[in-house]
């Protein structure tokens, strides 16, 4: 991870590179063309998180596109991480979307398999799954580092035109709680080998199993090759905890947490307390580089949560889209000149 040049130059990448714990959060776009909702949610997260994931038709329910909502979030001062699932787009659509996203200034992307359409509001739709998330990561990495499309063509408009490749900071998800457990870390390794720069995990309640998984991650040296952000979803009620435990495949909620919520006078407050403790505990685990907060439809609680977890204020870095950096820690300045160098380098494969 000690290469001198930044891959995409996003704020997320630079803060991760600085070694400080990173905070990302999820922002779910509206089930309408309502821009106010995005602006309101962005308002909660601005200055509070380092980047915000803009979900892509999550749980297979139609919402405003990730790229569209990301652009509005950017106008509101948030750095977006767009999400791309393999469910709705084939390799043509994904590549063209990534070119568009990059042209609009988006620099982070999270590659996901995607929830099956059966779970959403269009269960009769045809799915795509032209590729899986690992192939998607590999494709975006090749677009960035080898400057080629999936078909092998160079990313240029014509033979004489310049190569203008989309330089994305590439993320992938990991679920330490799915089965078969022994293969989970192997699958993470595949994602890293495919080119994932950062990982955001499924929300964690079962600390013991997460620690086990992280141990395996470290044993394989993966924590030195990829930034891992541990997923947190604050529990709002006992019912929510039970629902997560019983109905969400690949998720475990230990009895101890259920008991705490059951015994609490105010379950929402207790849920937040649990989340704060978890964040603090997670950040102590070797190999964890930050946290990813998925406060589903309750983005407004994120500032308070992070404040209590001692993660505010967030580090300030320069606008990644402007190379001229005049202030900020030296390390970040170096990183930024790295981006410039990177951009000026002649087109050649990066490995």
């Amino acid at each position: 991870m000690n290469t001198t040049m930044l891959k995409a130059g996003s704020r997320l990448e630079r803060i991760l590179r600085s070694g400080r714990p990173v905070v990302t959060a999820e922002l779910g776009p509206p089930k309408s063309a309502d821009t106010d909702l995005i602006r309101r949610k962005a308002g909660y997260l601005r200055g509070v998180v380092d980047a915000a994931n803009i979900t892509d038709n999550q749980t297979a329910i139609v919402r405003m596109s990730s790229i569209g909502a990301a652009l509005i979030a950017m106008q509101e001062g948030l750095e977006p991480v767009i999400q791309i699932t393999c469910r709705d787009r084939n390799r043509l659509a994904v590549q063209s979307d990534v070119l568009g996203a990059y042209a609009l200034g988006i620099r982070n992307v999270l590659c996901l398999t995607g929830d099956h359409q059966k779970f959403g509001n269009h269960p009769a739709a045809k799915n795509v799954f032209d590729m899986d998330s690992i192939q998607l990561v590999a494709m975006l990495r090749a677009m960035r580092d080898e400057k080629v499309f999936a078909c092998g063509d160079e990313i240029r408009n014509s033979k004489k035109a310049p190569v203008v490749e989309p330089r994305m900071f590439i993320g992938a998800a990991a679920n330490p709680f799915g089965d078969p457990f022994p293969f989970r870390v192997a699958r993470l390794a595949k994602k890293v080998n495919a080119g994932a720069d950062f990982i955001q995990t499924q929300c964690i309640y079962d600390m013991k199993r997460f620690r086990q998984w992280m141990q395996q991650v470290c044993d394989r040296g993966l924590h030195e090759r990829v930034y891992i952000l541990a997923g947190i979803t604050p529990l709002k009620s006992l019912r929510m905890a039970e629902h997560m435990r019983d109905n969400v495949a690949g998720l475990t909620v230990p009895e101890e947490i259920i008991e705490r919520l059951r015994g609490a006078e105010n379950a929402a407050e207790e849920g937040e307390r649990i989340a704060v403790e978890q964040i603090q505990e997670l950040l102590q685990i070797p190999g964890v580089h930050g946290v990813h907060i998925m406060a589903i439809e309750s983005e407004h609680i994120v500032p308070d949560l992070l404040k209590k977890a001692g993660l505010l204020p967030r580090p300030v870095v320069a606008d990644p889209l402007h190379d001229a950096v005049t202030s900020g820690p030296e390390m970040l300045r170096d990183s930024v000149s790295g981006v410039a160098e990177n951009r000026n380098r002649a087109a050649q494969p990066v490995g």
Partner: protein
Amino acid sequence: MIVAEQKPFEDIYSYAKRHRRVLLLGCGTCVTVCMAGGEKEVGILASLVRLAARERNDDITVDEHTITRQCDAEFFDETTARKAADAEAVISMGCGVGVQFCAQRFPDKIVYPALNTKFYGATIEQGVWAERCAGCGECVLADFGGICPVARCSKSLLNGPCGGSQDGRCEVDPERVECAWQLIYERMEAMGRLEELEKIQPFKDWSQHRDGGPRTITREEVRL
């Protein structure tokens, strides 16, 4: 085999009702094995249609006939042609291929499908059939311990499993569907081949699948 199941009776009856005389034509191959459209099913369905017609005062005559294979021209013999000629319409109890063959063989007849053709699969136990192959056109079973990720993983993942695999079941339908990737994992582990699963499987060439358009195979050496 090709696995199919009968359409709801009312759907089939609504086809039959449009005519005064129909031929119910069974097929003796796949759909006989999967108990959807063989001679026995032809007999049962014919009786049900006749019974319903009597109860509802509809004037429908039902003829029954079953041939060895509806997807093969040679089995459409003279008897079959005569029976079809006598009827106003043919209700085929073959798979989708059989129905289309009938439509081609009997150009002046309306041909209706009595089955919904589902998949290429096998009998798992008496009365239970499951999909095993999606006809992807370029078989990759060698890399996956003989378990097909294309047909048997709900998301056709070549680098699975997804996060929804739990207790060996697929999140898409835990009651009925095993997670193909759990099976692949177990089989490869038992064979000491887990390392092979760490290899990143590249994109699949879907042009070999239906995505490349309807497929044909021509082999000059066996052509007449």
